[in-house]
């Protein structure tokens, strides 16, 4: 199967599309955005090797799979657009003008609306993908960052790094339902699978705030500690959870570790040493491997979930930002 991927990259062209689809049906491929190379680095997770790059618009940051699993959307800061990358051909098939300097976004569950934090305008934009137009702009705190749409499509959450808040926004009306004060410089969000808790990483507080989705109170704050690191060097950003909602993974930024957190007890069960400034984290489908993007060492680290041991670090493009695993 790996030979197939290799052959395709040698031959290329339309004739190979069918073959690559076949390959992808069995493959386990990671795409890692690189802010300074304007590419996605392609990694075959089965062989743990870099197999190529896909050119994108300029300064790609957040990457996300479309709900049909066929395309990647990549927000590009310097192109003021999102690139639409077709996974079968690994080529750009379109651009969405999603506003100035885009970084983080999420899609509505139906895949029709793209919610984008607009850092310079301190707003959350509702972008209609079909028409390519903004249908709504909601004013939020300065430097909005992490965005997440609720699975039922009713709410959108966005963090403001300056206001130190999570804004709870009604997706239908665009009204800010609630402003929840969390830790300093809130970055990314994860929802427990049962929908009861929203976890928010606080980059400047070395913590995760846990919000109850019932009444939007902060029910607990998980403070991270790493032996030998001062709390100011623990700068959590990326976060993800297992599908059973038992385990969370938090990238601790400059502390160069990923924390494994037991969701029920809020306790850190393990710390895995990764590269410099662990930034975003992604699980594969079987939840056996965690891919950690290291922003300052231009590499990614694959971590074994069962043992919390790093398996391998692979060099990618300059200033890697985010990753998607396609299986």
């Amino acid at each position, binding site marked *: 199967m790996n030979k197939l991927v290799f052959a395709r990259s040698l031959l290329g062209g339309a004739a190979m599309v069918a073959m690559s689809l076949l390959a992808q049906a069995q493959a386990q491929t990671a795409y890692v955005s690189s802010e300074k190379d304007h590419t996605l680095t392609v990694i075959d997770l089965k062989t743990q090797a870099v197999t190529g790059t896909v050119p994108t618009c300029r300064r790609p940051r957040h990457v996300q799979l479309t709900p049909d699993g066929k395309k990647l959307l990549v927000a590009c800061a310097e192109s003021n657009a999102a690139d639409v990358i077709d996974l079968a051909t690994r080529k750009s098939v379109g651009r969405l003008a999603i506003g100035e300097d885009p970084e983080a976004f999420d899609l509505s569950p139906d895949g029709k609306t793209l919610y984008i934090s607009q850092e*310079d305008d301190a707003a959350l934009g509702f972008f209609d993908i079909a028409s390519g137009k903004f249908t709504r702009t909601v004013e939020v705190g*300065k430097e909005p960052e992490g965005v997440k749409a609720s699975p039922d499509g009713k709410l959108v959450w966005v963090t403001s790094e*300056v206001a*130190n*808040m999570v804004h709870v926004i009604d997706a239908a009306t665009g009204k800010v339902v609630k402003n929840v*004060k969390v830790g300093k*410089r809130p970055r990314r969000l994860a929802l427990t699978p049962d929908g009861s808790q929203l976890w928010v990483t606080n980059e400047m507080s070395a913590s995760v705030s846990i919000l109850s989705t019932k009444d939007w109170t902060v029910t607990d704050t998980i403070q991270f500690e790493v032996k030998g690191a001062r709390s100011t060097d623990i700068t959590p950003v990326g976060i993800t959870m297992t599908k059973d909602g038992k385990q969370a993974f938090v990238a601790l930024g*400059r502390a160069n570790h990923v924390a494994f957190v037991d969701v029920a007890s809020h306790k850190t069960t393990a710390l895995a040493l990764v590269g410099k400034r662990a930034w975003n984290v992604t699980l594969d489908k079987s939840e056996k491997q965690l891919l950690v993007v290291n922003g300052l060492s231009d590499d990614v680290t694959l971590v074994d979930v069962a043992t919390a041991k790093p398996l391998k670090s692979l060099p990618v493009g300059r200033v890697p930002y985010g990753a998607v695993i396609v299986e």
Partner: protein
Amino acid sequence: MRRLILVALLAGAAFGAAQAATFKLTLLVPADDARLERSRTERAYLGHPGGPAADGLLVALKEAKFELEAAGAVLTLDTVPVANAAAAKDAAQKAEKGGAAVVLTDLPADWTLAAADAVKLPVMNLGDASDRLREQDCRPRLLHLLPSERMRTDALAQTLAAARWSQVLLLTGPAPADAQRSATAQASIKRYGLKLVATKPFKLSADPRERDLANLKLLTGTTGNATYDVVWVVDSDGEFARTLPYRTSLPRPVVGDAGLTALAWSAQFERFGAPQVSRRFTKATGRPMTAHDWASWMAGKAITSAATEVPKGPAVAFAKALNELEFDGSKGTPMSFRPWDGQLRQPMLLTDGQGVVAMAPVEGVLHPKNNLDTLGVDAPEKLCKVARP
């Protein structure tokens, strides 16, 4: 000529917050500010102000709108130009009587001291880097946003030590502040194990009889076997320093007040959300954000953070929050005021004006409590003798 700017209107209603408390800010600026004459700001010497101190403050207050509204706090900024130390004292007293929560100064050191001695309020020094305000002339409620001269020289000395550029030729200017600043530079050179090859005074002059003081090649020539790795120039005025890079006798870098300079901020800083801050500032003011602008913006950030923490006051609680909170200033690490001298501890940027070359504290320089305290006066030195709250 008093300008009252209402920054955040009562918006508690939107979020059902309780009745808003008002925090009055009074900013004292020089009535006639030679630093801001067009001929100077146009030259944009590194480390010199680029415009009024109110600019950074207003940007910070505006961007805290959401937090302030949610907390139910209102901030107003009153800018008062003063002509001398006595006027600064009067204006500070008047502000205190008028219910101000904090006085901010962008004034010469003596004027700031006159204001600080006149009131029981927190006084925030935005624009003066003199070490004496943090040392022998420190005051109990005086806080400093701009890094001290010693923080700047420590940052530079650390950077040179890390690069192993240890042989330093020091050139010192004739401005009143230069002798003291040169002594500070020499203390940092000593502390970080650099070697002072020679120290020479300079003067701007075309007079052939003064060529030993004014000719760049002669000043930077090697007498005997003395060679050097860098030329460190101390020039508060800036004109001489600007002429120095690429015109030294030996092909060596210039550091200090030209070439590589240690500053609180650079508009070219790319990390920790800094570009967004610089961009907001430029959008609002039409000019690049300098280190002085960062200091006033940071004062606004500290004030809004404290006001959000204790939105209903009273003034004592506000002052306490200001002194104890940690602030985010888009330099990648939480910052707070040092209890021993009121200085905001902060990372420094080493810049040549084109980009950020390095940050200090440099990697590998360690401190028992907080690495940021390797820059500037540390607690055990006990150079500020007054009791601070």
